[in-house]
């Protein structure tokens, strides 16, 4: 179902009005993580435009976005996609869930990963 209310909720979190996106795909074209994504970044934005947020929330893409900003740096319409991805993650996380359970992280990761990775990851995933 197309819903403008869903779109506005995300706008409050992200500060990004995705209506200006004209689906040129430049974000997806330059996304380093695109190969692993089930939906390309521009498709996630399209779903948000349509307010079909459920589908976006169910996508792996939002957890694969590494906030590298390559997309927003080149976006001709000035859309900060990473903010939108974060708003989708946060929508789920604020419901009380978490995407990643710290205690179930593999031992070698816990042992070897830099603190920066753990802090950043837990910030984004829990």
């Amino acid at each position, binding site marked *: 179902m197309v819903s403008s209310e869903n779109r506005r909720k995300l706008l409050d979190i992200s500060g990004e009005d995705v209506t200006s996106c004209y689906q040129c795909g430049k974000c997806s074209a330059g996304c380093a*993580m695109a190969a*692993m994504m089930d939906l390309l970044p521009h498709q996630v934005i399209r779903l948000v435009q349509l307010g079909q947020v459920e589908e976006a929330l169910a996508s792996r893409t939002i*957890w694969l976005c590494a*906030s*590298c900003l390559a997309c927003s740096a080149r976006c001709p319409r000035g859309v900060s996609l990473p903010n939108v991805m*974060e708003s989708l993650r946060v929508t789920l996380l604020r419901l009380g869930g978490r995407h990643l359970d710290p205690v179930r992280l593999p031992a070698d990761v816990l042992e070897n*990963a830099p*603190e*920066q990775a753990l802090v950043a*990851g837990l910030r984004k995933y829990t």
Partner: protein
Amino acid sequence: MGYSYFPGCTLRAKARGFESSALASARVLGIHLEELANWQCCGATFPLQVDNSFPLVSPARTLASARRMGERLVTLCSACYNVLKRTNHVMRTDADRRDKVNAFIEEDYRGDLEVVHFLEVLRDDLGFDALARSVKVPLSGLAAAPYYGCLLLRPADELAFDDPEAPHILEDFLSALGCRVVDHPYKIECCGSYVALEPGELASGPSRMVVESARARGARVIVTSCPLCQYNLDVSQQGAHGRNGAGVPVIYFTQLLAIALGLPEDVLGFEGHVISPGPLLRSIGAMGSEATA
């Protein structure tokens, strides 16, 4: 040249060599880095939600206390640089969020601090020419690939660090040390960042692309300023190239700097690498044979 200095968590733990090599080099170069008292973690990632300013509190507190010490704050870690500089931008330009955060930390900080990366200090205050003159052990012949990743470059309008599509500060730095710079297209592509925590080595794909792009162009070492990039690029080489095999070591720019300045090897801190830099550096005579690797 005096600055206040923010180390960040990782440099006090997994990336000790990054800091020890930097501090030792700074001393030799006459750059005085005064560590902030009572600093706290910057949060490692800049919050992208505008309806929640809480994650800005910690970096803002750091900035406010740094402002009391002087006008410029130096970071080494790309992530700290990114988070502190972006937070500073918010405090400078977004009155609403500034007031909110200030109310919480009981400060009246207005973003009038300059957050600089150690590379910028070397370039702008010391000068790469002067740096080149300080080199004791020229690294001539070492084919080094710079790797910027994301956090130093984007968003370009806030960080204003270098040309976001064609940066060259690391290249200039490496040239000053006498390296042969290996240009490669993936130097500005993302390594996968915190997606490293996701099960299934999802981040290793992008990292492998980066390493491959450098290796294929003849790089024998990849140079970074981000502990997470270092980790991702290094770990992605597990298996395929094998420990001490044909892999490309990934090291911090300050480690190369310390070597070039002829500093003792105990400041390098090359522990815990998947691809050890030791054999390579020994092979070019940049490190003595007894050094720990």
